[in-house]
């Protein structure tokens, strides 16, 4: 928030600070706990007080994500693609804001921060194009040895908890979030603990991109504190541990085993590279449908 920092030099006018809030169920609540924590830039200058989410916030976010799942997973892939593309359009319009937030958060030069933001916008475009193609790449007909039609199709697994990467506050966040919702899952994202501002601001874009409320829910706070109830939650179907360290990841994976959540373990990722499809397939089920074909008539005649 460089405008806050140089306000003393050039300000006849006092700037208006933004109150950073959570994004849950399409609304912008404060933490139910009433707690906040201080977020600073890479040079330790205070940037904002952000909500320190509690386990109850996590629970509310799961309820919102579950509620949104039916309609979102039931929307046509084309419709989801249009909405993801709309997110890119909205981000493009607020590019400068994100460049500033990312530069502050990650201590980057303006041009390096801009490259991160541009890549993040393009990543939404990349996944917008996947919504109606992933089934064509990972699904298909199976030539079973019998008079049956047999088709395998991918389906979203459900509610996915996503621990956003700690370092890449925006590009990393988008890179783990977009593939989850592209395929029809709904998500609860735990923002980078140290640099949550770009994630919290993303909620404002999502809220104005025709994305139904509850499809993405953004929480800020202590990753470990929020992640534990999410990993143990019986109504969460999967968890992406990108933002967890090895010790926490193992603990969460053990908790996740209780209802056999699909787990994507943390792994080294270069977020500037074009992604593959693995972050989508990690949160897809495969459904195979059998149906008899049979012969044409009782006589058994066939062509």
């Amino acid at each position: 928030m460089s405008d806050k920092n140089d306000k003393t030099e050039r300000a006849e006018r006092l700037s208006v600070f933004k109150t950073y809030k959570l994004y849950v169920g399409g609304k912008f609540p404060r933490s139910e706990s009433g707690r906040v924590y201080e977020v600073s830039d890479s040079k330790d200058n205070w940037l904002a007080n952000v909500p320190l989410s509690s386990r109850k916030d996590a629970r509310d976010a799961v309820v919102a994500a579950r509620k949104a799942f039916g309609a979102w997973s039931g929307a046509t892939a084309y419709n989801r693609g249009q909405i993801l593309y709309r997110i890119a359009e909205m981000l493009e319009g607020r590019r400068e804001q994100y460049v500033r937030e990312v530069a502050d958060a990650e201590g980057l030069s303006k041009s390096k921060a801009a490259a991160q933001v541009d890549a993040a916008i393009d990543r939404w475009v990349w996944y917008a194009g996947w919504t109606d193609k992933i089934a064509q790449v990972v699904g298909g007909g199976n030539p079973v040895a019998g008079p049956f039609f047999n088709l395998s199709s991918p389906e979203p697994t459900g509610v996915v908890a996503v621990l956003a990467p700690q370092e890449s506050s925006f590009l990393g966040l988008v890179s783990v979030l977009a593939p989850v919702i592209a395929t029809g899952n709904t998500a609860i994202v735990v923002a980078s603990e140290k640099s949550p501002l770009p994630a919290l601001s993303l909620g404002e874009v999502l809220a104005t991109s025709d994305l139904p409320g509850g499809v993405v829910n953004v929480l800020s706070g202590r990753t470990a504190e929020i992640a534990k109830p999410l990993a143990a939650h019986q109504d969460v179907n999967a968890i992406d541990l990108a933002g967890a360290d090895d010790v926490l990841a193992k603990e969460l994976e053990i908790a996740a085993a209780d209802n056999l959540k699909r787990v994507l373990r943390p792994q080294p990722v270069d977020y500037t590279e074009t992604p593959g499809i693995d972050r989508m397939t990690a949160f897809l089920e495969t459904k195979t449908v059998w149906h008899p074909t049979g012969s044409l008539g009782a006589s058994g005649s066939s062509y």
Partner: protein
Amino acid sequence: MASAFEYAPAPESRGIVDIAPSYGLFIDGEFVEAADGKVFKTVSPSTEEVLSEIAQAGEADVDRAVKAARKAFEKWSALPGSERAKYLFRIARIIQERSRELAVLETLDNGKPIKETRDADLPLVAAHFFYYAGWADKLDHAGFGASPKPLGVAGQVIPWNFPLLMLAWKIAPALATGNTVVLKPAETTPLSALFFADICRQAGLPKGVVNILPGYGDAGAAVVAHPDVNKVAFTGSTAVGKEIARTVAGSRKKLTLELGGKGANIVFDDAPIDQAVEGIVNGIFFNQGQVCCAGSRLLVQESIQDELLDSLKRRLSTLRLGDPLDKNTDIGAINSEEQLTRITSLVEQGEAEGAERWSPACEIPTSGYWFAPTLFTNVTQAHRIARDEIFGPVLSVLTFRTPDEAVAKANNTPYGLSAGIWTEKGSRILAVANKLRAGVIWSNTFNKFDPTSPFGGYKESGFGREGGRHGLEAYLDV
């Protein structure tokens, strides 16, 4: 339809579209005159009003356009896929923004009802660009090996029945895969392609990537024959398709053809009757039957023939024929005088051969090209109206006794584009679909299209597929 509830005229506003008195060819990002200065007129088939005067491309213009496309190819094909994607997404969005304008334009130039251009053509056009935009940076995942390469300059010739949609089917996959394009729209419907040229400019598409050459068959032939064209894509009649196949023989040009059809719509005795009637109507009267995949042969199980025909006739009596710009019009004008003549002559032959002709009472406008919805009963496989593609609102009704016989009759044609199956029994759908020699089978529905779904024919209906992942292959060097 005289009724107590008489719908007042509800015309879509024509003011939304601004048609210039004349248009040039679109070559290398500019509108230019034809080299020989020739022009032709495009008329509105519902009124015979001249809409605009269009530059008519000849061989020299084709050469100029191919050179422009060749020049643009180098940079265009070298762009990262993600950047090509963004151009196509822009085009998709601009089409969405301008869709009402384009729908009215298409209705004026083609004669089809605004209901169809608004609710079918334009949404599909935008969706097609949106879909292929997404493929541009994902070709590695398309199943054609790593980093599949484009072919080069694509020469594309499209018909008049879905002018802008056929353009989208051709241009979107070509650009997504990194090819550049020379496209010739049909001489009776050049306007929407020229408006598309303007959309390319609004989207900032590099010059020469898309070139539009309105003209007649000779221009199309020149595009096909041009030695520096690497790929030929044609949608139109089977006769011309065969001519094109001969032209490209011995060259290295890749060829895809979407040609005629004589689709069978098979209705079994356990069909959901009311929906089957809707499907039959949609199958043959959508776009006045000027659809290559039309369900122009109704194969009905003999045991329900009378009941089905009664329902069908009652339903046809509610069809509203008239001003294509009226939002309540179901049946618009035939695209051209030439097409009307062809339909009329085939229908006369049907009568002469002894088939029984029926049309609902309907008032035919005094100007323009019109043909009432028509149904022929007592048709057999031997009749010309059961074999030749009429490409008009004419349904030939045949009967069958068993599923075997239905399949045998459905397949008894040199064509193989589409077929429909109506039954509540899932296994029968799949068994019959397995046996049908046609590229698209609709069950308990008809004439459904989607950019993700491959479309194309067996046998003399052509080869290659447009749409879906499969549609990429036609434009890749694989």
